[in-house]
């Protein structure tokens, strides 16, 4: 009997030892960056009209773009990398969140770039697996001008009546290295202690057209395919406004 007791105690002690050895570091937590879009104070979804400040209806067929070098910046300026490159596609909910587990710290900002850096932009899309955001199958590459950083296709009813037909079709497909922008947005938060922290990042689609400092006119500046074709100023204006359209 005594022997049994001893054995049981030994087994329990061994088990406890192993269990405590496996216990995760309680200082760490999980983090998710969630992407959403809005149109000023209106909600946004693809193929659903919003009303612009000039009372025109505008709806998007496609809103798809690259974010790269996404990281969380700690108070001591060190960074936790979330993703080297992510293709955000508002028609595919799976692309709208980026998670990283077992991180910890006091953070002061989110840092990311819109578009791809020059090294990423030199990738041959046929050389990477089809699941990679840079893959040929993502529909974001043209051989003569490399990756499309930002793709926005819209339909507008310019009558201002709120019920006219969609008669105007802004189209922006923008790439080339000079359209790459870096963004830092301040936000103080902590990740620790087995908690899940979710940060929601909004793209305010209205700001792409009605930026803080400049307006992209959907009539006279309604289309550009790439930074080097059509009117490069439209591509520059779009890229500037786009990078400033993110908010928490």
């Amino acid at each position, binding site marked *: 009997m005594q022997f049994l007791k001893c054995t049981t105690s030994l087994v329990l002690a061994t088990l406890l030892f192993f269990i405590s050895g496996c216990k995760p570091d309680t200082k760490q937590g999980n983090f998710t960056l969630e992407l959403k879009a809005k149109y000023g104070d209106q909600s946004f979804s693809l193929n659903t009209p919003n009303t612009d400040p000039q009372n025109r209806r505008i709806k998007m067929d496609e809103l798809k773009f690259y974010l790269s070098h996404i990281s969380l910046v700690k108070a001591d300026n060190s960074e936790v990398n979330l993703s080297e490159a992510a293709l955000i596609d508002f028609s595919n909910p799976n692309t709208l969140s980026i998670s990283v587990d077992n991180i910890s710290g006091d953070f002061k900002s989110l840092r990311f770039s819109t578009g791809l850096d020059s090294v990423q932009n030199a990738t041959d899309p*046929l050389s990477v697996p089809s699941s990679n955001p840079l893959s040929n199958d993502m529909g974001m590459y043209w051989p003569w001008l490399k990756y499309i950083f930002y793709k926005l296709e819209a339909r507008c009813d310019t009558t201002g009546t709120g019920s006219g037909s969609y008669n105007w079709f802004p*189209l922006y497909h923008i790439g080339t290295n000079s359209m790459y922008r870096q963004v830092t947005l301040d936000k103080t938060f902590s990740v620790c202690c087995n908690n899940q922290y979710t940060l929601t990042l909004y793209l305010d689609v209205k700001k792409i057209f009605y930026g803080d400092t400049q307006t992209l006119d959907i009539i006279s500046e309604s289309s550009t395919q790439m930074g080097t*074709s059509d009117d490069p100023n439209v591509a520059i204006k779009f890229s500037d406004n786009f990078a400033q359209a993110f908010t928490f």
Partner: protein
Amino acid sequence: MRKFSILFLGILMALLTLENCKPDVPDAPPGKPESDSLYIGTTYTIAKPFRFSNINNTYADSLTYEGVELGRRLFYDKHLSSTGQLSCASCHKSEFAFSDAGHAKSTNVFGPTKRNAPSVQNLLWAPKIFWDGRSATLGEQAKDAFHGEQDLNVPNAIQYLEADSEYVRLFKKAFGRPGDITEEHIYLAIQQFGMTLISSESHFDKVQRGQEQFTESEARGFQIFLTERGDCFHCHTHGNDLLMTDNIFHNNGLDSVNDVNDFTDKGRGEITGDINDYGKFKSPSLRNVALTAPYMHDGRYQTLEQVINFYSDSIKLSPTVDAIMLKANHANGGVHLTAQEKQDLLNLLYSMTDTSYTNNPAFQNPF
């Protein structure tokens, strides 16, 4: 020492005997005492052409020469239709890049259909098949076509195939044990044949590989194709590969329609039920396009000249027309190419003809 030697020899012999006993394929079904080699096909490996995507389809791994040959026979065999008059090849003729030679709308065993039989090539790289993309694999496509076009009677077909010794042999080789002739295996054999239908040897391909040169007119045509001047590239390129289609669904502005419900053929919308997809069809590949008249999902254009004129000058508005179609001067119907530009574009399209594909003996009627 001697004892050990005997023991060692004994173990060795036992191992050797066991190795000989090990069947290299599962046991033969009862009543079918054929030797094992009858059930093993020869592996067929697909070579990826220059600037094609990696082959992601896992079913490419199980390809055999016998499976491909079986698929070819089934593709050309009229006995599988309810009337005994039609095979897949009736509407997909090899000399026309497996399109329907002049028929605007194809005719199946039930009568005229509502769409033009598309050309067939490089479908191994197509994530969705048919004008409306209703099939995800060549096998699914084969099932759809056998029932929808040929009115396949499965018991009759199996009875017919089981009575043919060559079919019996090929089914065993292609699908191992159980090598029974089944409905599913019919579709999978067609899939295997379909996967080998690869076109990558046109003059256009050879220019891309640096082996040949464009003529001056073809080179100008390629510039028109690749730039906003012609704006063809949006739907007829796919990243960095040479499939010559984006494999995506678009409304290319064929018809002027005020309400989405007024489309004669709802296309992709019929499959998804989404009104935003009404009137959209999959971009066809431009490979071998000079051989595949008439054009569009309903075969409305008889010549490539008519097609180029349409894209140049006659784009029409409708609720789902692709914004890309309307980018250039949409109020006036299109990009308005000059006569020379149209000729250059036409010459470029002719450069995509691959007669080594259409004449390939491996793709012809085996009967």
